[in-house]
């Protein structure tokens, strides 16, 4: 069975462009959450907050390529470009059929659909429809645009599992390399903010609104005073590569993806299941061939919802006890939905490389129901050999990755 190296990482996050920007924002403990004034115009929702990507308009992408891209495709392409530049693979191999793409998103571009239908419903005419509409809204738009922009001609997959999308994308890409059907995968998740996402969480009483006047305090994973998710956007894309090939070409290996699991819990399409989360983590550890006690750090999904954080904390305590450090990055970044798996995996790898762990922002008073696992609140210096990355999603989807450091 082949091993899988991470040789490139690219980020477009609510902190801005690039992995360095993402990492510095997290290490400095900043919040990327802001008041989004336009949300006041919408009825039926209480939250006024979002974590948007600043300063990206995509104009650096030539029009002929950009015409098929919505915002989420632009984010994915820019993140993939950074990741591929770092990986420094031979571009002559991009079209070999051995280099594939797995990039997913929660839902196809709502901004594009809204714009089209707002005009279309005036007279129900399709005469003003442009060809780009389909290419921007097809469910595999981001993956296809990444493949076409770079000429990556291997497998193409566009998983969609809401908040677990990015984590699944990495996992499925990992499995394609392990199995030998692909050698290199450009993989991750991407998300563009739309008020519908925030309204959906709000409808289910799972979006933060009590901190509308204090946005930097709004996302509070595991905290007693948390009141829900703050939706965000961005893209996190990694280059995964057959370990042996990476070694032979002298590539810098940033980390190893050594285990993956995903499973579906069918008791409820919306309620989190602590037992299912734990089963998923157990399967990921088994895939990596490691014991729970070998894990040195856990990057939790923990979105700051009432139920989700409790379910994950209980699952973590049951499996790992009270010694392994745990943190969530949603306090800094909000919940970037499909992008969070990629962005948080990148951040986890950066933590391992830097030898310091980033705590949960806004965790001042831990919810007693989240107590058990060691959820730390200040930066910790630590050599981390093995990390676990969780993401869980509406739809009953659970997803875990095991990441091994390369020291």
């Amino acid at each position, binding site marked *: 069975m082949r091993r899988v190296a991470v040789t490139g990482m690219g980020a477009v996050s609510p902190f801005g462009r690039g992995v360095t920007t993402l990492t510095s924002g997290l290490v400095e403990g900043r919040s990327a959450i802001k008041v989004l004034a336009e949300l006041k115009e919408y009825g039926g929702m209480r939250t006024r907050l979002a974590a948007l990507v600043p300063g990206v308009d995509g104009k650096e992408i030539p*029009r*002929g390529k950009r*015409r098929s891209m919505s915002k989420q495709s632009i984010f994915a392409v820019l993140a993939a470009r950074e990741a591929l530049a770092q990986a420094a693979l031979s571009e002559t191999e991009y079209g070999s059929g051995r280099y594939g793409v797995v990039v997913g998103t929660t839902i196809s571009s709502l901004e594009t659909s809204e714009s089209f239908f707002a005009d279309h419903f005036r007279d129900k005419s399709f*005469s*003003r*429809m*442009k*060809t*780009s509409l389909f290419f921007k809204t097809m469910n595999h738009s981001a993956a296809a645009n990444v493949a076409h922009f770079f000429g990556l001609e291997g497998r193409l997959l566009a998983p969609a599992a809401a908040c677990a999308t990015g984590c699944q994308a990495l996992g499925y890409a990992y499995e394609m390399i392990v199995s030998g059907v692909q050698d290199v995968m450009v993989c991750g998740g991407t998300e563009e903010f739309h008020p519908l996402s925030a309204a959906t969480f709000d409808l289910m009483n799972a979006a933060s609104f009590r901190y509308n006047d204090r946005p930097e305090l709004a996302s509070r994973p595991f905290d007693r005073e948390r009141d829900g998710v703050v939706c965000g956007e961005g893209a996190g894309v990694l280059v995964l590569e057959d370990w042996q090939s990476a070694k032979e070409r002298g590539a810098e290996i940033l980390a190893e993806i050594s285990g993956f699991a995903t499973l579906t819990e069918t008791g409820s399409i919306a309620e989190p299941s602590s037992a299912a989360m734990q089963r998923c983590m157990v399967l990921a550890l088994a895939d990596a061939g490691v014991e729970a006690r070998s894990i040195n750090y856990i990057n939790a999904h923990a979105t700051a919802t009432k139920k989700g954080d409790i379910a994950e904390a209980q699952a973590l305590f049951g499996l790992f006890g009270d010694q392994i450090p745990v943190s969530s990055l949603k306090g800094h970044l909000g919940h970037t939905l499909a992008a969070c798996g990629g962005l948080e995996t990148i951040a986890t790898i950066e933590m391992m490389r830097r030898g310091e762990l980033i705590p949960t922002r806004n965790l001042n008073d831990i919810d007693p129901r989240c107590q058990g696992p060691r959820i730390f609140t200040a930066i910790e210096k630590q050599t981390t050999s093995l990390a676990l990355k969780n993401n869980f999603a509406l739809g009953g989807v659970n997803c875990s990755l095991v990441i091994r450091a390369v020291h």
Partner: protein
Amino acid sequence: MTDAEIISLVNDSLIEEFELESSVMVLEAEIFADLGLDSLDIVDMVVVLEGALGIKIRDDAGLREIRTLGDIHQFILQKKRETEAAS
């Protein structure tokens, strides 16, 4: 609208839609080689020009003869005259 105004409107519409530089908007500019458009763009060009000028050209066989920007101008001017004559 005068012919000059129509040509100006056509050029402005194409510049905006396809992010073209004004300097490439010369009569002999070939729409594929010089303006960098492709078959999908041509479909969108029709939509844009129909919207800008309030005419219907999608099913006009003359579209297939267009090679240059000058051809577009002549095609549109001819179409406009036909439309005005019919009304």
